């Protein structure tokens, strides 16, 4: 049997009094898109931070291709080949597009930064992406939300990752750009990249995901095959309709947005 690219077993994380993740299991295989869904405060972003090393887990086992690994720092995750696009797109507004793209993996020449090579590669990459960035030397603070999103996504492609974590990557994109972006995800998957996609958009999930993992209040609440599961079933699992905790949410639940 082929080992999954990444396997989490019994991952838990606590912030002071809040138990953000409880015994979460998750598997992502190479060449597979796994969608991670859940309501607000379900622990999706916390789980991303666990995998990316920004907020390591308190308990639990992480296996990479079947071997147990420690991810204590962003550096550890990057060494394994994990790249991340965060929901809040935290980037440095004062640095230019090139500077942000290569932050943490600058290219050097004779010991100093090789701005020319970095700019060349940045332009090459950005050409393949949906949004036009008019000036790669513009400080990031001057870019629009969509442009920043493209920079964040490009940044994650740069390292040629084996596992890509995408936390609501299409939130600031228009319809056409979203479609182009989804094409890009499929292309990466076909090349054997494992992808974890967090999204509130059922359309996106139906379009590219192979499996859907549901988190609810920090716990696993179902794993579905996208091809054989109805949207209603997944939503029911997100909102807790099939959870036996007995707590039903009012109609302001984020799940409503999908319909």
């Amino acid at each position, binding site marked *: 049997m082929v080992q999954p690219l990444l396997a989490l077993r019994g991952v838990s994380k606590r912030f002071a009094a809040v138990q953000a993740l409880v015994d979460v299991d998750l598997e992502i295989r190479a060449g597979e898109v796994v969608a991670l869904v859940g309501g607000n405060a379900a622990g999706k972003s916390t789980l991303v931070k666990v995998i990316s090393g920004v907020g390591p887990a308190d308990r639990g086992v992480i296996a990479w291709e079947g071997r147990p690994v420690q991810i204590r720092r*962003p550096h550890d995750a990057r060494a394994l080949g994990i790249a991340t696009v965060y929901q809040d797109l935290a*980037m*440095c507004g004062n640095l230019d597009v090139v500077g942000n793209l290569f*932050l943490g993996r600058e290219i*050097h020449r004779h010991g100093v*930064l090789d701005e020319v090579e970095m700019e*060349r590669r940045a332009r090459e990459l950005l050409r393949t992406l949906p949004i036009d960035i008019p*000036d790669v030397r513009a400080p990031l603070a001057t870019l629009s939300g969509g442009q920043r999103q493209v920079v964040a996504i490009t940044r994650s492609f740069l390292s040629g990752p084996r596992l890509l974590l995408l936390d609501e990557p299409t939130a600031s994109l228009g319809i056409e750009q979203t479609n182009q972006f989804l094409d890009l995800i499929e292309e990466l998957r076909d090349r054997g990249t494992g992808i974890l996609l967090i999204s509130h958009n059922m359309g996106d999930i139906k379009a590219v995901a192979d499996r859907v993992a549901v988190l609810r209040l920090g716990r696993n609440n179902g794993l579905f095959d996208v091809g054989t599961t109805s949207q209603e079933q997944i939503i029911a699992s997100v909102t807790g309709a099939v959870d036996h905790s007995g707590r039903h949410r009012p109609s302001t639940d984020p799940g409503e947005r999908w319909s």
Partner: protein
Amino acid sequence: MTAPATGRFRRFAEAARRRLHEGGLGPAPVLLALAVIWAVFQSLNANFLSPRNLSVLSVDIVGTGMVAVGVVFVLLIGEIDLSVGSLAGLSGALFAALNVNHGMPEWLAVLVAVAAGAGAGAFHGFVFTKTGLPAFVVTLAGLLTWNGLMLYLLGPEGSINFSGDGLVAMLTARHFAAAVATYGLAALGTAAHLAVSFHDRGRRATAGLPRRPAAEIWVRTAPLAVTAFAAAYVLDRFEGLPLALLIFLAVLVASDLLLRRTTCGREVLALGGGTEAALRAGVEVARVRIAVFLVSGALAAVGGLFVASRLTAATTVPGSGMLLINAIAAAVIGGTSLFGGRGSTWSALLGVLIIQSIASGMALLGVQPAVQFMITGGVLLIAVVFDALTRRAAAGRVRA
């Protein structure tokens, strides 16, 4: 379709307009302010722009300027270091106490003084990083502590005189009278700028990237060359190139290269642009913070030695508070943002030139220091307001 030349022109116009929008006018407003200050003082006293006065000015700026370069590093990560004045004072006192009172060789005493500054700075950074206390509180404690230690070292007399022929005294007394020194440095600086610009242009061309027209490089180099050779001419007519100015320029060039062209510098700027982003990109935030406070402490100590050198005595003057205020004011007036992430070490030079020009002009006119403080305060306020407006303009553009 537009002709290629028109397209190129349009791109430049677009880039220029964008720069105006961001408020990133570069050093233009500061240079304009400096020109106005010099013109006003020259019209009030014909000696202001004399080679003697300008030469003295070029040495007087170095002590505060060195401290201000350290302050720029701290401001770039969005923090503040209030201990630099005290550390400058401590450095002078430590040097004098070790050299004069304990007979330590000058070079060793200098090393110990600078190492003490670096160590104290690193300690501030360490406490700031590990406790999460605001940097101004940590360095305020440093301000008091190191000022106390300085007073203790200086003893009841409050000053220690040292040799006027020694290493430290030479820092500000030595001048290179040969014309080859002054004009040579100007030529070297201009040539280096041209060489780097054209080398860069060549590499960009090879990589197929858009590049500056050669004419633009010449046009940009011209003001630099004029300034450099004018300075060389003026200095040559008095005592030649001051050693202090040479060292200051070397520190400025080195720290500018460090910030703009190395990974360390990139990490400093990234921290000022967003701590969370830097953290996620794998920047070791704690290490960079400690390093920045170390640099600030070390440069404060170096600045303190230059201040002591000017008087050939270690005194309580640098610890009095004016050096701290002037150094921070210089960095901000020169264009380094108080909000972090924006600025350059050259702002230390421009800012300290403005502050010291006002001080020098006032002294020539016989105006009392009270007025000088008020004017410097006004200039600082203008600079800070300008900084805040620039920041707001940049933030406003995002939503647009």
